[in-house]
């Protein structure tokens, strides 16, 4: 009888113990991998290099990105179809999902973690939501010119002081929306920044906002620490009038890397990464690379920059050594390397290889492959360490 009771107790309580153990885990080394074709994502354990499970029903993720809550428990996923989804990484459940627009391109979370902003192509502008409930907080239509037409918005980032900054693709303007007074946003507009801005970044200190210009041979820069911030053209004429190659994929500027005292930027329409002095914004070098760079991402210590490329050369990854500005390693994970993400201290890097349906993990010193995880058409990889970085 006693034995029977003991067995019963184990049967009854064992699942609870397991459940509790599952609940009692940190989230600082979790992450997500977007599965772009199936509208799903996989929650991953970065330390164990293991997939924990799949979350489905996220809509069209063909171009998707994510930000994380300050407690690193929730991911906010921005889909192409205007869907904004809140995913609990611990329970691996879709907690809430709103369709907030017809066509979107990324989002951001405010410095206090309370506001989620989404950048929309259709209808053009930015919408802002409460991060707890996803209830609407503000709508900022990107109207410009005399006709009041709405511009697509790109390059949306958070900035210190409860601000969001974004760029109007059709209008060539940069807008700063300041939510610090608790009510509706105060908006500051910078017009005439240049032709066809396609993406932007903010440096990790929240000081410099830089927009890439497809229609110009240069970039638009704002120093947000200036007493009177204004837009300046930097790297003007970096192509020096040379004919650009056709661009089969727009570079992503979020990956623009700050490595030591340099910014490393993918050049548009050129097989080059540009090295720029991070104080003067003068060009200090160019590194010839395998193709047109899409992401040029610095290892967190800034010693290396890893680069992937546009179609049709997107099977290759190259590693630039920053001090010598030389390509020190090239390898071919296979067709359609779409994204890469470093572990927070940079010892490993995760690389998504869409066409072979896997994510590969490499040691960043030996360049050895140390793991492979099967994933369905993987694209973006996002680790929760982003929760604590400005602009990510």
């Amino acid at each position, binding site marked *: 009888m006693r034995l029977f009771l003991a067995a019963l107790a184990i049967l009854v309580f064992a699942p609870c113990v397991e459940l509790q153990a599952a609940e009692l885990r940190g989230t600082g080394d979790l992450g997500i991998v977007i599965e772009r074709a199936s509208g799903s994502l996989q929650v991953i354990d970065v330390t164990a290099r293991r997939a924990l499970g799949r979350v489905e029903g996220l809509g*069209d993720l*063909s171009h998707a990105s994510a930000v994380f809550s300050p407690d690193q428990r929730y991911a906010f996923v921005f889909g*192409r179809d205007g869907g904004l989804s809140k995913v609990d990484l611990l329970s691996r459940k879709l907690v809430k999902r709103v369709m907030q627009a017809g066509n979107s391109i990324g989002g951001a979370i405010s410095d206090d973690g309370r506001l989620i902003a989404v950048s929309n192509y259709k209808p053009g502008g930015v919408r802002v939501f409460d991060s707890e409930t996803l209830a609407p907080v503000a709508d900022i239509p990107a109207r410009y010119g005399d006709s009041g037409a709405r511009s*697509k918005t790109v390059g949306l980032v958070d900035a210190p002081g409860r601000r969001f900054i974004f760029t109007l693709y*059709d209008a060539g303007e940069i807008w700063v929306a300041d939510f610090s007074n608790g009510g509706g946003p105060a908006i500051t507009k910078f017009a005439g920044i240049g032709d066809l801005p*396609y993406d932007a970044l903010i440096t990790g200190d929240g000081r410099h906002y830089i927009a890439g210009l497809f229609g110009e041979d240069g970039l638009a820069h704002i120093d947000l620490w200036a007493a009177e911030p204004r837009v300046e053209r930097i790297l003007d004429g970096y192509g020096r009038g040379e004919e650009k190659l*056709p661009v*089969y*994929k727009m570079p992503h500027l979020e990956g623009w890397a700050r490595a030591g005292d340099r910014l490393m930027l993918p050049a548009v329409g050129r097989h080059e990464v540009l090295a720029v002095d991070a104080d003067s914004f003068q060009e200090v070098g160019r590194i010839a690379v395998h193709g047109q760079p899409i992401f040029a991402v610095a290892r967190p210590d800034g010693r290396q920059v890893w680069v992937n490329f546009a179609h049709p050369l997107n099977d290759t990854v190259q590693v630039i050594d920053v001090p010598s500005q030389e390509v020190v390693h090239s390898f071919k994970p296979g067709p359609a390397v779409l994204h890469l993400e470093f572990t927070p201290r940079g010892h490993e890097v995760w690389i998504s290889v869409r066409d072979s349906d896997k994510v590969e993990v490499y040691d960043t010193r030996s360049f050895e492959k140390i793991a492979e995880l099967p994933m369905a058409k993987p694209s973006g990889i996002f680790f929760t360490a982003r929760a604590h970085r400005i602009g990510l």
Partner: protein
Amino acid sequence: MEPVRLLTLSLAGLVVLAGMPAYAGEVPPERAAALSYLVRQDCGSCHGMTLRGGLGRPLVPEALEGAGADALAEVILDGIPGTPMPPWRGQLSEDEALWIARALKEGRIE
């Protein structure tokens, strides 16, 4: 941008009418599957994987009703200068571009 685009399309149309060799627009079945994949994945990076639009315009049949397949094929081969739409000549043959143009208009991209 609208007038420029119409002009581009009608110019391209004129060139075709003016007696450029008409392409057959036919491709072997394996190539058709590869082209569908290219359209969704690589055109999709600007036009959306569902082709409902992104930085580039939607490429769904309703959106392309006003344009002829020949003119669209020319746009695909030569791109639209001054915009991010790149020329695909060199990557795609004329037959392939025409196949894509027709498949887009008819909603046949798998």
